[in-house]
């Protein structure tokens, strides 16, 4: 069995999922067997505004353990990650990073901010300024 541990930077409680990668897909969004697929299939939320189609960075995660047990990032994922705030060398998109090894032990951190939360905050500030 593979193990996926999720740490939420916003302080939500850690979650751990044990699963058999061969049984993917677990849900209908993201690549089958991806971090997003596994989490949603086990009722653990991870934002995915584009529906898990590698068209935004809301499912950005930072891999703390087990980076080599994930599928290799495609150029498309790398292009998208370039636009993620708080990018690190072990950043991946949850919708694209597939857990391939049957005994993988993966730990990911879900950052507090996505680019959209950043922009929404800016919008709120602008709106409050305009509204006086």
């Amino acid at each position: 069995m593979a193990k996926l541990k999720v740490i939420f930077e916003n302080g939500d409680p850690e979650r751990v999922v044990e699963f058999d990668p061969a049984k993917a897909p677990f849900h209908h969004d993201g690549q089958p067997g991806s971090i997003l697929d596994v989490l949603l299939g086990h009722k653990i939320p991870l934002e995915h505004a584009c529906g898990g189609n590698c068209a935004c960075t809301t499912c950005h995660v930072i891999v703390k353990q087990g980076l080599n047990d994930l599928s290799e990032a495609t150029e498309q994922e790398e292009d998208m990650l370039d636009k993620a705030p708080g990018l690190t060398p072990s950043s991946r998109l949850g919708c694209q990073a597939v857990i391939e090894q049957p005994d993988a032990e993966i730990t990911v951190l879900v950052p507090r901010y996505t680019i959209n939360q950043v922009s929404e905050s800016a919008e709120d500030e602008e709106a409050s300024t305009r509204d006086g």
Partner: protein
Amino acid sequence: MAEPGEAAFGSRPARRAKVDRIFDHNPDTRSLFLTPIDSRPVRFVPGQFISIAIVLPDETRTRAYTIASRPEDGAPFEICFNRVVNGRGVEWLFQRQVGDALDFIGPFGSFTMERPPDADLVFIADGTAIAPIRPMIHRVMSMPNHRRVNLLYVASKPEHLLYRDEFESYAASTPQFAFDTMIAARTEMHERLLEEVDRRWVKADADRTRQFYVCGVGKGVVAIRDVLRSAGYERRAVHYEQW
């Protein structure tokens, strides 16, 4: 009135919009014009999308729909979509009526153009993937002294070339805007598009200063990206979004 879909977005607060108007481009393609009920404007950059809560009998899903109108147009804003096989999201949207409400979050997405780059621009789209490109083109064409713009637009049928009048109007009004269309069966669409891209912007000259915005369905988008980048265009000069 649609059932609320707040639960689809976790802790992120949803906004609600009502359907102001419906426009059918053809039997398979529809635009919904949406006005936020809270009257706050939806501030977006050309190319961005919203995430809509699709309220199905067994679950609520979130699906992304690109805003096809211009930010400057304000409310209502327009989303455009077409029927797809097993597309439960679009079927749900096709069932919405004027006055119905839906919940959304966003805008999102980084396939955008805030300010046109100082370069000749090439836009490539297929079918409804013109949606993010349409407001980009309007943004460019609203700028004084804009650079040359090419739009290469492919669809499986002539009636699936959306907003055609707008683009033909630009082409008629200035030689700085070139509008070319292709009709191709879905099975051969990307191959033909790839050949055309290779002929026009790889083999025709050695200019590698253009910037590209490519949007479409399937792996053909990535194939175009690879052809352009391997031909010497800079990585960041080839913007793309694969649906």
